[in-house]
């Protein structure tokens, strides 16, 4: 069990804020951390890794980690920009963590990097670098695995494959995993629990289904463009064009409740939707 009760002043996306967390994570849990940029997600990982200090306490299996240096925490960490050792080959990056050739070969095989093991990181693509960082994170046989957007540079197929691989490795090493991600599909497929952070605080906590499911009757969209008898609305990452009554006045930037329209036009897919009068 990991228990975090921490407080730290941060300069976030919207100015100064306090990271205030009271979080318990069960052994073996796969926790996804979602939320806007600057909400304190990466800082949470860094505090747990011992790379940053915070007031309060971090208890891991009942042991206070305040005085445990980062070197002794036995964690795996995948940074957003990978943090690979540029002077070492792919294989040497893994063996630097632990001189375990067998494990290195296995991880290189899983991440499909065996053929690239003699290459230096600056000759690899972003996706390949990300896979090296992932493989390296497992070399210490970590108790806790910290992933800061680990799949963001990957194409769809590799993403699906690595989702499975991470889950497999997470189970094999019986580690507790914390993953920062903005991607609902990654979170849905991989995480057993999700927290959503806003300005340094947890605002939602539950399963992916509970956290991300939206009641369609409260589905909101932002108006991006107002035409003569149509409006263009952004709902999530989807652009939708709706026919509207000429009598109604709409402004760009306003939020409108479009859920009711979807319910009304249940048969329609995307494209033009009828607005009920």
């Amino acid at each position: 069990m990991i228990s975090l009760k921490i407080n730290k002043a941060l300069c976030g996306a919207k100015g100064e804020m306090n990271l205030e967390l009271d979080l318990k994570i069960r052994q073996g849990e796969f926790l996804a951390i979602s939320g806007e940029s600057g909400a304190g997600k990466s800082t949470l990982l860094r505090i747990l890794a011992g790379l940053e200090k915070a007031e309060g306490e971090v208890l891991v299996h009942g042991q206070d980690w305040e005085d445990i240096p980062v070197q002794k925490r036995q964690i795996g960490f995948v940074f957003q920009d990978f943090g690979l050792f540029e002077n070492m080959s792919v294989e040497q990056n893994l063996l630097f963590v632990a001189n375990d050739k067998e494990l290195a070969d296995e991880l290189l095989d899983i991440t499909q990097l065996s053929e690239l093991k003699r290459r230096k990181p600056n000759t690899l693509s972003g996706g390949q670098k990300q896979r090296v960082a992932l493989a390296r994170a497992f070399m210490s046989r970590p108790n806790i695995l910290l992933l800061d957007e680990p799949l963001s540079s990957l194409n769809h197929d590799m993403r699906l494959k690595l989702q499975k691989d991470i889950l497999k490795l997470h189970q094999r090493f019986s580690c507790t995993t914390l993953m920062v991600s903005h991607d609902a599909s990654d979170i849905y497929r991989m995480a057993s629990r999700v927290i959503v952070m806003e300005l340094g605080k947890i605002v939602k906590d539950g399963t992916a289904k509970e956290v991300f499911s939206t009641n369609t009757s409260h589905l909101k969209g932002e108006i991006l463009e107002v035409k003569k008898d149509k409006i263009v609305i952004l709902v999530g990452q989807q652009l939708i064009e709706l026919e509207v009554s000429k009598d109604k006045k709409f402004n760009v930037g306003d939020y409108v409740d479009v859920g009711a329209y979807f319910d009304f036009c249940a048969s329609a897919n995307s494209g033009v939707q009828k607005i009920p009068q």
Partner: protein
Amino acid sequence: MHELLNTLSTLDLAPFALSFKLATITTLILFVVALPLAWQLSQSHSKVKPIIESLVSLPLVLPPSVLGFYLLVAFSSFDLAFTFKGLVIASCFYSLPFMVQPLQGGFESLNKNMIESSYIAGKNKWVTLFRVALPNIKPALMTALIITFAHTVGEFGVVLMIGGSIPDETRVASIAIYDLMNNLEYGKAHIYSAIMLLISFFVLLSVYIFNHKQKYFKGVRA
């Protein structure tokens, strides 16, 4: 032409040998001293960091006579003035910023997460320094070593005050040129100066070519 050959054949190369001996010893000592200092400074957020940085950089702005005067006062009680040993110690002071600053700049330009990845891998600061940080700042390392060497070879003011001009002991090349000028031996002064000019140029050229190649190959590989 005959006169030039005659001058060349009677040229005393001892001042150059002494200059290179001084520069080599100084560069080696400074590398050992400055490497941990530059590493600590690059990793530190301490309030005393600007004070240490200012002290390290003082020789860049201080008149050589001021540095020479204080060193002479300090050396007087240790019999170090006008000795080669004293010259080495003085050189370590005036060339210190030329070693520390490029190394510190190199360390500070490294990807922070690369250093942290090494700590997470269980490696301490010193393993991280020698196996991760140092191999990734080759151009800065090359610059630090060569510029320190070249600056020590070229220093005049402090060397004159601390070492004077004792042949085979403290009479380095820059002092020898000064002596030749004072003795109105312009022919030899010309040759000594030309040798210094060429050495300085090729030293700098080697640094720039090395750094250019490093950047070029990095770009090609990326």
